[in-house]
């Protein structure tokens, strides 16, 4: 792959798993982020975190489709759609036009309006049929009328396109946690990062006239606390932590819940892996969506991930029970006798979660109807 800098993986990588199946589209993550980092003048249109309804929704509007269209149809080398397939198409770096580092586009101002456009708006599997084909039933294995919520933050990519794009080298990746930052002193607002980030997560501040992006809530992560958008997730779909960046190391450290989910169980997949940036936010794909759409969005691991998800063993159920049980970053987990236990970096027990809720019966003077 063509990337302007030599690979230099961080020691630990900021990463998260988003369980799309559980997302309720409530935007609590969105407001938690907004109220922390982007409430000032010049940031009115700016949402570092957003949740959009697929397929019509997007912030900025139609961001993913526009780039897919530019990139053109691509292929995974294996027809089976399984993990282990090799991408045989072009990444955004290989598809870069002459004089550019990567393929991209700069959204127009109006595309940053209406961040929740087409919320809760489904499509039909075959849009040729048109809206007259009114559907009276959907039924698994795949819904024929469908939408789902896609949760989006900066992916703190291993090969960030924004970083590659920056003419001033004002964007860097922290070695200690892999968080990608735009230096607010050095940035001059050329907006190349906005143009080339395939996820459109750097944004332009109209008042300071420089670019900004998600900072991974490093003031929290540095304290061993998960990012705001993660901690706020009331649908309990998000788990964030620090994983090993190299797959081999991640596999060797299976006690880490993120390594376990991403590298051992392979239940969570990167968003648009074909872009080539190696994003570090991983998604458990939605179970009801037509597979072909999921392959396009999450790559060839979809079948295996969903197989694991729908035949859950006790250990995996335990790890999923740890999602949002605590705000502290969990470095280790342990599942036994209907309990999931999480530990911090020092090995201290942080949380103990019963996998089943108990039913408690009090003496008869305590009525259920009063």
């Amino acid at each position, binding site marked *: 792959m063509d990337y*302007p*800098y030599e*690979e*230099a993986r961080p020691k630990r990588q900021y990463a998260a798993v988003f369980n799309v*199946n*559980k997302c*309720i*589209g*409530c*935007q*609590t993550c969105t407001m938690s982020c907004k109220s922390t*980092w982007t409430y000032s003048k010049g940031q009115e249109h700016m949402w570092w975190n957003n949740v959009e309804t697929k*397929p019509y929704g997007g912030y900025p509007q*139609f961001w993913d489709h526009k780039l*897919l269209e530019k990139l053109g149809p691509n292929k*995974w080398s294996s027809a089976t*759609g399984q993990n282990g397939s090799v991408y045989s198409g072009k990444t955004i*770096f290989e598809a*870069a036009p002459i004089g550019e580092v990567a393929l991209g586009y700069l959204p127009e101002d*109006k595309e940053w*309006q*209406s*961040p*929740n456009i087409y*919320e*809760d*708006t*489904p499509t*039909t599997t075959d849009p040729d049929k048109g*809206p007259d084909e009114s559907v009276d039933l*959907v*039924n698994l294995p795949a819904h024929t*009328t469908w939408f*789902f919520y896609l949760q989006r933050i900066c992916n703190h990519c291993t090969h960030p396109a924004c970083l590659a794009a920056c*003419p001033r080298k004002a964007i*860097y*990746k*922290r070695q200690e946690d892999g968080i990608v930052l735009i230096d*607010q*002193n050095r940035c*001059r607002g*050329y907006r190349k990062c906005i143009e080339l980030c395939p996820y459109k997560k750097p944004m332009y501040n109209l008042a300071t006239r420089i670019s900004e992006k998600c900072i991974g809530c490093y*003031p929290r992560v540095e304290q061993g606390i998960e990012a705001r958008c993660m901690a*706020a*997730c*009331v649908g309990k779909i998000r788990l964030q932590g620090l994983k090993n960046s190299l797959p081999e190391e991640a596999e060797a450290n299976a006690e880490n819940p993120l390594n376990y989910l991403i590298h051992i169980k392979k239940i969570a997949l990167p968003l648009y892996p*074909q872009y080539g940036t190696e994003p570090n936010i991983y998604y458990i794909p939605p179970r009801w969506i037509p597979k*072909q*759409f999921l392959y*396009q969005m999450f790559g060839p691991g979809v079948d295996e991930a969903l197989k694991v998800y729908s035949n859950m063993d006790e250990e995996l159920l335990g790890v999923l029970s740890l999602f949002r049980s*605590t705000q502290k970053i969990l470095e280790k987990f342990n599942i036994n006798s209907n309990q999931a236990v999480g530990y911090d970096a020092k090995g201290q027990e942080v*949380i103990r979660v*019963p996998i089943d809720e108990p*039913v408690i019966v*009090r003496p*008869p*003077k*305590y009525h259920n*109807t*009063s």
Partner: protein
Amino acid sequence: MGKVTRRGFVKATAATAAGAAAVFYFGWAESAVRLLEPVSVENPLEFYPERDWEKVYRDMYSHDSDFTFCCVPNDTHNCRLRAYVKNGIILRIEQTYGESQSKDLLGNTATPNWHPRGCLKGYSIVRRIYNPHRLKYPMVRKGWLEWANAGFPTDSNGVVAEKYKKRGEDDMIRVPWNEALELSAKGLMHVANKYSGDTGAQKLKAQGYPEEMISTMKGAGTQTLKFRPGMGLLGVIRIIGNIRFSNMLQLLDAKIRGVGKGEALGGRYWSNYTWHGDLDPGTPMVTGVQTFDMDQNDLRFPKFLIQVGKNLVENKMPDAHWFIETLERGGKVAVVTPEYSPTSQKADYWMSIRPGSDVALFLGIANVMMREKIYDEDFVKRFTDLPLLVRADNLQLLRASDITPDYKNKELKNWVKVQDFESKIEKLNFERNAVKTGEIANFGAIIPPKLREKWGDFILWDKKTNQPKVITRDDVGDRFDDLDLNPALEGTFTVSTVDGKEVEVKPLFQLYMEITEEYDPATVHDITDVNLEMITRLARDIAKNTPGFDPEKPHLIGGTMIHSGEGVNHYFHNDQKDRVIHLVLALTGNVGKPGSNKGQWAGNYKHSVFGVGLYPWVQEDPWNPALNEDIDGADVPILPKAIGEEVCYWNYNDRPLILDTPKYGREVFTGKSHMPTPTKVIWYANVNLINNAKWHYQMVRKVNKNIDMIVTQNWEFSPDCDAADIVFPVNSWAEFTQPDLTASCSNPFLQIWPKPNTGIPPIFDTKMDHVVLAEVAKKLTDITGDERFANYWKFVLEDKTDVYIQRILDGCTTTRGYNVKEILESDREWLMMFRTYPRIPGWEQINESRPFHTKTGRMEFYREEKEFINHGENFAIFREQPEATPYMNNVIVSTHSWITPDDYGVPRNSEDLEAIQVRNIKMPWSEVKNTENFLWKEGYRFYCLTPKTRHRVHSSWSNVDWNVIWDNNFADPHREDKRKPYVGEHQVNMNPSDAKNLNINDGDYVYIDANWRDRPYTDYASEKDEKWKKASRLMIRVKYNPAFPSGIVMMKHSVYQSSPKTVHAHETRPDGLAMSESPGGIWFSNFRYGGHQSLTRAYLQPTQMTDSLVRKDTWGWGIGEGFAIDTHAPNTCPKECLVKVEKAEDGGMPEDGETRGKGVWSPAKTGFTPSNESESMKKYIKGEYIQS
């Protein structure tokens, strides 16, 4: 450029940088200087040299202190939130992750599975607390102030001149607290005085109020004063304090009429839950209790969960995870809604249904269950009235006394006290004492002997002996087994009655078999549009999934759970839907066990969780208040003289349902126990009562003209402030200067907050809600010289409100033993001590063989009372809705001879919706399907759905920019398009092909109208006042949404409706903002014109106004008949409307100098939008940008 080398990359970027530098040189001189510094970053993946700047974000994130408070909008969650403070300002909010620390007196704790609680509204609440729309000081409406200053002049009938009544048009004027408090006290006295006694009655009569309403007042003018605690449980002190105030007014009545203690009456207090259309009105008809809601961690147990017109994903956000987690544990979810909803996407299957036809679907399911014999015979016999015999001749349940000469009713002993009390107070004191002593463990109901005698004992047909046998209310569960009977469920029998007749009788089960025969799946499919095969599948899936351990699904100990929601509750026959859903659950034994039952939860209505514990606070004896702070709450003297009233009647032109029927002449359909009084003062807190009222413009333009004083307590300038006379500004939830408490109908947490000496001081000149009331009471003392008014609020005025909280805790089974100070100090939630965690309704009944709170002690699917028989509703039966139907309005779909409705002579071609409410005609479906609603004929052919949004809680957050931006397709913080009323605007979702057929593009503006005869308000057609005409007709933007089947439009409910002032501003201000401006503040309409309540009207459902329905009291364990506030009363039904849609204006931006739009809204021209997809978009949807 081919392969990019590092060297080449650096060179290329250097050139770009130089080019851009010139631009910034002029814009930002300082930057230019910095640009000159050499760049020395080699590989930014590996090392970055200048990281000191990172402290910018660390500083931004730092805070000085934090505190917790409770976010208590009208949802059911009560999330405890933590606020972070810097320089005295709340920076941001976070969830506490503290739920698992909550415990009870027995050592039980909640689990971390509850973490975290708090949604987007909690996070954006900072935006409300510091919002420029906050109320900053008391305000009085200009015209009202003039009226008061003129000495409250009226004509001889007590009517106030028109010039003083320009609500919605007048400015709101700042007045000092002292003056506002005094004005409100004087206003109360003026009205109470004016309408007291015979002269008062004469005036009301002259004003046209019916005699029934006037005589209900018993001469007390105070009875025209209406107080509404807006979802009282959300603030038991500060909001329910409103009822306390109302009770205190018996002192005022005594003063005015010269009557003594006992005779003097307080004010009236209004319901919440029923009027919102929230109550499951059929649940008290089946179970005797208000609702059957469970704590939401119980949603972790069902093997099968069905959502009927319910959207838990969008509307139970902190607790939605519980049910979604069952999917990861092997559970299944089905959704029955017209549209493919946010909850539908999670489902194993979703079935579309015609709006308002759900009862037919569930009758079809009962049909399948009975026909295929997949019901739980044991459960049916042990816990339901289905084995009881019903008489053919009079449609009454057969009684033991009917067939046994001189039969004496048996003594009832099972979890019941059959006892007479001299007065209601004596009974309440008995209950309160039973809580204190723990004797409450022995009974769950108190029945007056007279009622018990009236009910009698019941008869079933025993197959073992082939004889009719007696069973009593006691004989449920194990106690029924002890009788060793085997009741017939099927068959027809004859019994000889004591008066010498041979009477045909049938078990109720047999009758339901007959009735549901007309609801075979094919017919149900025809009625409901539900997919034919799925009707049978749904029935079988319910029958298959019953409570109990299944080794295949070891985490799911529940069975089938059904949740019905507002989607189905907002239709006129909402009670039938509850009766039939309870029926299919009872048929399959899905009751009273973990992960079973029928849930509902709408709004945090359930102050009954505190039960009789509320009395010392709400209805303390004002003649002799307990001034000793150490008294046990259970011993505080009470004298309940505040009388509950259903707010639906105000909404129904301030009238009960009285009709001139062709058959009988004048008929009163509102039961005596329900009868409202004329409304002359409305005083309310914590709710935008008027903005959110169905038939909003009828209320502001017509009904409220007859009201002399409207007082609202609010923390934001909302449309309700413009619609009121006096506005008291109150502290936000984060600015509490005194503690309050709340609990919930959907979680086990008891919240009392804030911890002393935490929080931020009030930002503006505001007070706590209950402090406002206490200070008005003090004014009444000042004016009358009677110390008792002020004494009634002694501990509020002394800043010791915790004394009152402790009294509530003392008196309540679920909290007795808790210490308020310890709870406050602990700074977290505690557990309500229900019988079970999670709270499971029906638990005692099913697991311990206790009778339900009904007359038979069983779940009742038959209603023998005359009101039900007259209206053809003795059985749970499907009726078309009175307005929202293509077919004949309100028709009963049945031919069964035991359904004997009275049509009151209302003709079949009537176009009078008032009369149609009582026109009861039965017809077979084959005939119904050939009839047509007169409105349908006139072109009103869209059902109008108005569900709740996730971005607001009803009208709360309507003016928070961030929330508005996420609530629609038309958001723009910069408002490039000046037509937007605010930073976004309200939208109607519409099926794209419907829109295209009407030449409506995605993003266009449309007019939406409902029945012209009475909407937006009666006489609208002849309205002369242009500003009202414009303000009340709905204009709204269309969003294409294929989730909605053809024939349905949907707009989310309760944003701010337009007023003449917002329309005027929108049309005259250069920025186009639809703003209502007063010297006291501003608010924005979310519409350019009208509002969604332009389309709605009020209805009164006759079987919800009976004097005969047996039900438990809302608070405590007493069982009685007829009206019970928020339990048995009419539920308004805002989805009961059909509408027309027509294009109003192009969605595209206006051209320069124009105000009207031109062309298509720009996103709809991209090819990326629904029903306007380009080839490329189709490819994307099909996933063709990757080939696998």
